[in-house]
């Protein structure tokens, strides 16, 4: 199932809601939960309070409730389906289903404590360089996050910008120093990410083993609006991601192609402690169709970046010049 975080037209910035998806409609899960509790579970008195407990204003908050809330989500969605997504209303007559154009979708996880991209994880690169011993990573600041449709703003300080498609494994259960064999118990689902890099800056920063400006500038982390949940290990490993630039495919890979396993990555990074809503992204430049090292495909002003994984959805961004638009 895919869930979203969004704002309605009249919402204040902190009034984010979690949405499910049915028949092309986005379903406000807080109102749908209240309707379900009132009609199907006979909990009239405190339906709204319980609904805002189970579906708080962040997806990280929702994931914290773990297995029971996922089960409740299933029950709610089948209740909405049975009642008719376009007919059903909340207990007080509230609208609960929206066309996608009525909801301003956001990156699903707004402020994770850990939002890391694992570097050196692609097979193509290991053919050109010695393989990495440990899954090191770099941190993408939440202030760099945008979602589909937002322009990617060319950073003024760079002359060489490129894009890498990634799959982010999203954590659903807190833990610390998790052994590899228990790693998958902590996975809630997956998101689609395009990691934008100012390659010239990144190369220079690499000489002093830091990795900051080249990876963190406004709109340098594009995150698809859907969080895919409720899938098992096999399905997630098989997710196919394709990144194209102006219509020509640049990268194509699945999570199972990564040189590090999800088990290794979670075991390593959970040393610091991980919690619901954190994510670890994998994949950058796992190019079957032309390794970036041998066949670079830099972005240009006006380029259209498209990244898609059928089960998750897609990202579409146009590259614009700095100063053309301010967020």
């Amino acid at each position, binding site marked *: 199932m895919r869930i979203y975080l969004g704002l309605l037209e009249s919402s204040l910035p902190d009034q984010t809601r979690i949405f499910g998806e049915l028949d092309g409609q986005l379903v406000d899960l807080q109102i749908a939960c209240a309707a379900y509790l009132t009609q199907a579970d006979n909990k009239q008195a405190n339906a709204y309070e319980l609904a805002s407990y189970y579906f708080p204003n962040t997806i990280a908050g929702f994931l914290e409730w773990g297995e029971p809330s996922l089960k409740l989500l299933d029950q709610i969605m089948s209740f909405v389906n049975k009642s008719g997504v376009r007919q059903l209303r909340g207990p007080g007559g509230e609208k609960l289903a929206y066309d996608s154009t009525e909801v301003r979708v956001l990156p699903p996880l707004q402020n994770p404590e850990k939002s890391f991209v694992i570097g050196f994880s692609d097979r193509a690169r290991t053919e050109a360089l010695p393989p990495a011993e440990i899954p090191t990573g770099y941190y993408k600041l939440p202030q760099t996050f945008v979602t589909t449709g937002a322009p990617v703003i060319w950073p003024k300080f760079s002359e060489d910008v490129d894009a890498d498609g990634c799959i982010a494994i999203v954590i659903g259960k807190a833990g610390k120093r998790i052994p590899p064999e228990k790693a998958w118990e902590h996975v809630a689902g997956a998101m689609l990410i395009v990691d934008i890099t100012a390659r010239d800056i990144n190369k220079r920063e690499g000489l002093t083993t*830091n990795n900051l400006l080249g990876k963190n500038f406004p709109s340098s982390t594009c995150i698809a609006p859907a969080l895919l949940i409720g899938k098992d290990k096999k399905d997630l490993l098989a997710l196919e991601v394709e990144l194209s630039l102006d219509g020509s495919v640049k990268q194509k890979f699945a999570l199972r192609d990564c040189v590090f396993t999800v088990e290794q990555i979670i075991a390593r990074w959970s040393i610091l402690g991980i919690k619901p809503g954190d994510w670890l992204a994998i994949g950058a430049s796992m190019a079957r169709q032309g390794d970036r090292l041998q066949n670079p495909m830099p972005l240009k002003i006006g380029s259209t970046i498209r990244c898609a994984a059928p089960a998750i959805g897609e990202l579409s961004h146009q590259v614009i010049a700095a100063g053309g638009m301010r967020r």
Partner: protein
Amino acid sequence: MKLVTFFHDEQERIGAIDSSGNVVDLINAYASYLRKVEKAAAPIRLATATLGGDMVEFLKHGDQAMDAARVAIKHAAGDSGGDNVIERQRVRLMAPVPRPGALVSAGKNFSDHVAEMSSKKGPVAPVAFLKLPGSVIGPEDDIPHPPEVKNLDYEVELAVIIGKPCVDVGADEALNYVAGYASFNDISARDIIRGENKNGIHLMGKSFPGFAPMGPYLVTADEISEPQNLKLWLRVNGELRQDSNLGYMIFKIRDMIAYWSQMGLNPGDVLTTGTPRGVAAGRKPDQVPWWLKPGDLVEAEVEGLGCLRNRVVAEK
């Protein structure tokens, strides 16, 4: 002003240290002023809307919040009743900015430190890395010594707290964007960093929980006329290990702000200056190692910003 974040009655609050060393609860004191002097309705709600609920919000509210804080401190000096002023011992001080938006820490930024770390030459552009905001701890917290780490090190630095949105600013105007300053200790796991550096990026070795002690308070920029000439030093178990002056920075505070403003800085973001010589990693192999171990007391201080004292404990 000496601004603090403190924990009292199971709540995180924003405050200021008053002339006798006690803590003014800014929201309570400002609400008291609004109620008694301005005769405002719902004063607590108005005070919270004006000052913000935590330090990052306070900084985002800018001059309006700073002015209200000054009013609150003045009011509390004459009216310390209720919960306007709380005795220092009755609260737990947290880091003044417990959850910065971004924590940007300079590396290789003192020539004597560059030399002791055997780097061939100084950097061509400012060098910095991100520490995880979640690694920040306060002046009354312990530094956990992770079981994975063999070479735990200290680095006294100045923390520069940004007070205004700041994009592509010039060095000459850079200090106008600073809200204030605090003492900072950039704790580092050198052995973990060495492993990570083989891939050309390090993150974990600087970002274990508790690797970013900050505090005890944020001194507002109006009280520091020239931050670039402050002394800074660090002691371990009373022994002086680092003793230098920010004047020896390679990229100055103004340059750092100007350079990192290219990525866009926001109120509540924190830049740290890099550290001078005297870290444990700079010891020669034939000398007694200086690595931190459980039980050590680390005192990091920047002139005029208060002593940041943390005990190293074995991580449970």
